[in-house]
């Protein structure tokens, strides 16, 4: 496989940041391919387990994005989430997860250019930190060398 490409899992809130991603698409704003988006109803839905789960599965970076405080479709979801993220990021980085891996942002559904810009920023930040070294339980099958092998045996098993 040629050079390593950062693998980033993004949790986007359906009403604002996912909408911004869609609008970035409609406006054809290009940003790197390294991001896989998982849609959740609200940033309040993002449980610390998911972020730990993503890191454990070998993601090089995790990006969580929701509505600007005050914009939340469910009125207060992002306010509570903000405190969770603050404490979780502090704890993870305190225990050795490199600061460039975990990213949080508020992006409204009209800010397509901010979405594309932030996407580039996150990918570059994770690229700068390098491939995931710590806290990995399982390797992602994402365009990895073994992926074809695993897929092959998958087929045999049927």
């Amino acid at each position, binding site marked *: 496989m040629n050079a390593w490409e950062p693998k980033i899992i993004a949790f986007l809130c359906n009403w604002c940041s996912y909408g911004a991603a869609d609008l970035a698409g409609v406006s054809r704003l290009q940003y790197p391919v390294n991001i896989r988006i998982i849609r959740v109803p609200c940033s309040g839905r993002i449980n610390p387990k998911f972020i730990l789960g993503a890191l454990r599965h070998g993601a090089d970076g995790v990006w969580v994005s929701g509505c*600007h405080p*005050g*914009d939340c479709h469910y009125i207060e979801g992002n306010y509570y989430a903000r405190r969770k993220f603050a404490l979780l990021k502090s704890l993870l980085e305190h225990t050795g997860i490199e600061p460039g891996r975990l990213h949080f942002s508020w992006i*409204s*559904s*009209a800010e397509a250019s901010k979405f594309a810009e932030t996407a580039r920023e996150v990918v570059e930040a994770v690229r700068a930190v390098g491939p995931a070294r710590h806290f990995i339980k399982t390797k992602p099958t994402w365009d990895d060398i073994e992926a074809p092998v695993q897929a092959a045996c998958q087929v045999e098993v049927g």
Partner: protein
Amino acid sequence: MNSSGSGNPMVGSVLVVGGGIAGMQSALDLAEMGYYVYLVEKEPSIGGVMAQLDKTFPTNDCAM
């Protein structure tokens, strides 16, 4: 303005002219109240002037 008084039967539909914030809101309310609504808008899409706004006071959340 009692409704059942006049002779001819009442028609259970309403015409809303204008697809701005006011038009949309009354159309939505009427539809949920059980009336058939015709919404007439001169532009190719609804949204009116509010769709042109970036943020709106007093909450500063996005108009879109």
